[in-house]
């Protein structure tokens, strides 16, 4: 019944009535194949491209950063140490008051940076509201932000790390600076004096853990 008549041999008078066949095909195997390939591509693909955190290092050639050019009350030095500890002090004084903190998002270094950079963060917040209310467009917003971040009275952060710090600490602190709108910062070598200072804080007073 369903076979197809092939060849010319069968033409013996009688008309072969071909039966109307259904045009529907079972698509299940095709769907199977489709999903198999989807699975393959999903697993091999990289949808999210990695992000880039740009950094410009100070020129190394014979003139290290002239720290006297930075205003005393605008400078903040952050020293990364082992076990995610952070030591910091403001100013460039000879006998600075070194404090200890960590990467805690509420009580850690972020609080310090936000307090010190409060004015500029508020300025940027204002620009952001203007952007939201469509007063300025995205390009103008970016310009304003970079103006605020590189303003003359913007804080300057020196990032230093000792031998026990990790790469994650470094990136975290750069990220923290980005979050808190610090535009001016530099990664510089640690002084032996500073090493003594952080060791001093370690010995003098046991670190007071901020309330968990």
């Amino acid at each position: 019944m369903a076979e197809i008549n092939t060849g010319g041999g069968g033409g013996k008078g009688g008309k072969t009535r071909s039966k109307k066949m259904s045009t529907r095909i079972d698509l299940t195997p095709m769907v199977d194949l489709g999903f198999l390939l989807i699975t393959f591509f999903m697993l091999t693909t990289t949808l999210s491209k990695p992000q880039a955190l740009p950094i410009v290092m100070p020129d190394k050639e014979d003139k290290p950063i002239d720290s006297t050019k930075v205003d005393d009350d605008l400078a903040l030095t952050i020293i990364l140490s082992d076990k995610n500890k952070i030591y910091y002090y403001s100013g460039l004084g000879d006998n600075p008051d070194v404090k200890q903190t960590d990467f805690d998002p509420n009580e850690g270094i972020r609080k310090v940076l936000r307090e010190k950079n409060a004015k500029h963060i508020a300025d940027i917040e204002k620009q952001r509201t203007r952007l939201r209310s469509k007063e300025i467009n995205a390009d103008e917003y970016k310009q304003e932000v970079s103006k605020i971040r590189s303003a003359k009275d913007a804080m300057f952060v020196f990032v230093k790390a000792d031998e026990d710090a990790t790469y994650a600490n470094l990136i975290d602190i750069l990220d923290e600076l980005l979050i808190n709108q610090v535009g001016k910062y530099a990664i510089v070598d640690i002084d032996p004096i500073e090493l003594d200072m952080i060791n001093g804080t370690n010995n003098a007073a046991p670190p007071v853990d901020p309330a968990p």
Partner: protein
Amino acid sequence: MAKAKIPRKSTSVDMTAMCDVAFLLLTFFILTTKFKPDEAVVVDTPSSISELKVPETNVLQIMIDKEGRVFFGIDGQETRVQMLERIGSKRNITFTDVEKAQFSLVSNVGIPIGQLKPYLAMSGSERGKVEQPGVPIDSLNNELGDWILAARQSNPKFKIAIKGDQETEYPVVKRVFDIIQDKNVNDFNFVTDLEADPFK
């Protein structure tokens, strides 16, 4: 009362719609896919809020793994060959055309230059098994610096991207910075994962 007769329905479902969806998704994935480059080591990068993307071309990637091994990679097969020739002539090693062709397919190197020849002679599967010691970065044998110099001469446009593991110790990272800066490159990128800005 007469029983209501439930008509027997066919159990086969029309697959056309499902097939459409499957192939639509398939097309999407085929078009958007970009295969993961085979990297010599697994590196777990830290995250940042930066929204910039790592450029796709002209990137010189320096990977630093947990143990402080340094790997070096650049895109573009032409560049790789030229770079190898420059490195070879500096160290008085001549590479054959076969070796050059092999090298142009390697995306990351973590092998001292002296051991490069036997490495390139291996087949692909053998290479995967080799435990690469990393490019030497100490001041006596600063091969990373030579690689960067050779890469710069071959393709002056590239950007350096540093991809470090979270647990990499700072002194190694510092040493890599110093080498890069010695070659007068002062701006570069860190490769990170994306994280949300807490204040946005």
